[in-house]
């Protein structure tokens, strides 16, 4: 089988746990707030004492996925699970902390790398399979979902996690300067999709216009950058739509599309 499908999506946002927590209208629900911060996830013990908030959010998204799929962590452990991580901004807070010497200790520096988030996720869940990290907003997540389908087709993994994390609170002033990049409310989010072999053929191409799912995710969740396509998938699934799906995502003028269609 060379097709694929999304088996489950875990979502954590500033609006709460899962896609069900999303308001009908994010702009109205924000009531003028520029950033909707996510509650700090529970710090899971000594191993995470140095982990940044974005690392903890990444772990929380995978935990949410496992709950959604009714799977235990052993179901994803090992070298047959690929990890594709995407973010536009979740390195900003750790970079800022290091630059401004809020956290300039020896051990903080490795956490400034975007690879820190998937590293903590990989350590926590024992993921040792193929690995891709893409930087960008929703268009990069479409690229990442497509990469996941390729890894499956090439037989390099049996399943792939596509993880996105976005945080804004620590760099709210900087995002206010780059107003043309984002439209408030900026909603902190982490989301993870489990992509497995399935009946649908994935077609990847530039997209001329937003899909209905892209528009829905924007309206319900607000600005979630790289998390948006995964939230769109979660919304589709919550609506009982696990069949053919057309996803699009835009970032800085580039819109990519991925269609899961019948063979």
């Amino acid at each position, binding site marked *: 089988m060379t097709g694929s499908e999304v088996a489950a999506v875990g979502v954590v946002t500033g609006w709460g746990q899962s896609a069900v927590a999303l308001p009908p209208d994010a702009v109205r629900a924000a009531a003028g707030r520029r950033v909707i911060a996510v509650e700090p996830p529970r710090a899971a013990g000594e191993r995470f004492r140095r982990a940044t908030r974005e690392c903890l959010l990444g772990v929380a998204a995978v935990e949410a996925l496992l709950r959604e799929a009714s799977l235990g962590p052993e179901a994803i452990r090992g070298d047959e699970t690929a990890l594709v991580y995407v973010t536009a901004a979740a390195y900003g807070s750790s970079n800022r902390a290091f630059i401004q010497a809020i956290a*300039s200790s020896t051990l903080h520096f490795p956490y400034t790398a975007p690879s820190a988030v998937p590293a903590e996720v990989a350590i926590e869940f024992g993921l040792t399979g193929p690995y891709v990290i893409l*930087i960008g907003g929703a268009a990069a997540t479409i690229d990442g979902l*497509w990469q996941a389908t390729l890894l499956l087709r090439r037989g390099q993994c049996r399943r792939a996690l596509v993880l996105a994390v976005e945080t804004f609170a620590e760099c709210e002033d900087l995002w206010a300067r780059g107003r043309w990049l984002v439209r408030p409310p900026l909603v902190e989010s982490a989301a993870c999709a489990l992509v497995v072999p399935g009946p649908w053929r994935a077609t990847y191409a530039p997209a001329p216009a937003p899909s209905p799912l892209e528009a829905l995710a924007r309206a319900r969740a607000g600005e979630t950058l790289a998390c948006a396509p995964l939230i769109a998938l979660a919304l589709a699934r919550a609506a009982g739509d696990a069949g053919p799906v057309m996803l699009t995502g835009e970032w800085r003028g580039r819109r990519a599309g991925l269609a899961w269609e019948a063979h």
Partner: protein
Amino acid sequence: MARLRTEPVAIVAAGVVTPLGDVDAFWSGLVTGTDAISRIERFPVDDLRVGLGGEIKKLKRERRGGCRASQLLFAAADDLLARAHLDAAPPRVGVVLGTALGGVEEGEKALAGDPSARRTAAALYDGPARALARRLGCRGPALTVSTACASGATSLGVAADLLRADAADLIVAGGYDILCRFVMRGFDALRSLTRDRVRPFDRRRSGLLLGEGAALVLMARDRDARGRRLGRLLGHASAGDGTHIAAPDPEGRGLASAIRIALAEAEVGPDDVDFVSAHGTATPLNDRIETAVLKRVLGARAGLIPMNSIKGALGHTMGAAATLEAIMCLLASREGVVPHTVGLEERDPECDLDYVTTAPRAARPRVSLSTSLGFGGCNAALVLEGDAR
């Protein structure tokens, strides 16, 4: 797991900017054993334990410039375009770049009091790739990969995927990173930088030094390359360690897995590998683990394959490193010479492979293996085939 056959992808041409210079100077510097490490002059380093690095001293700045990272990319692109043309429709030409640091120096400036929106936007890690795509007029996919110091390998793999999937006809792919206070402070704090010279696989090795650069290759589907090529990417793979945020897995399991998968994708075995370009950072841990992994994966063949690290000459150029090393592999095939490992004088008994030392070696590798490791347990392997003259 059933594997889908993957077609090779042509590497048509290369362009670089390094502390040694463009592609020609890079190659001649490697074969003459030039040490490009110097005192860093572009920003203050007096407060750091180590102020040395592979700094590019002269860089042509464009008036409509952008950040230093973009300037490095523009210089490498000029070198590339002097050797090859982007002869495809702009929407069919993509850019895929790897970086460990993106535009972080712009973030430093933004936080130091420059309130401009342009500066802030340039701090995003995908800014330089977008700037290069704009400058080249490429309107195809523009992707930024950030698998830390393996980024320059992962980017070539992602570019190959895009070509095989017909998402583009040409891809300008590669990696870059600059020396800046941010990264020097970080590695200085980690005590990873040596006060000695960089000595990959040497028993006296005591750490790495950083360098800066940009390395680009023009990639096309092999069937479209019409004979003009420097070589081919036969296989690539990545694998995570899942063990530590900054240190490699003690057994090198992720690296071993990446090498095995890349060789399988390339449909070559250990006996086919003629040359290994090692990550070879000269940290005590990396070089020992990498040696052990190569012996485990390649078996008895490992000791018979010439191997080098170019980080003794350039420093560790982070996001650029793996692409520079891939280019070096292809130039070695073309020129019939394997550059030696600058700084390696007294081999570590635990590092007992056939490192090329002291002088370049006459050899014309057909198939090369290039390995890369990065923070966060990122490991990558490329299998390349050179086009001998």
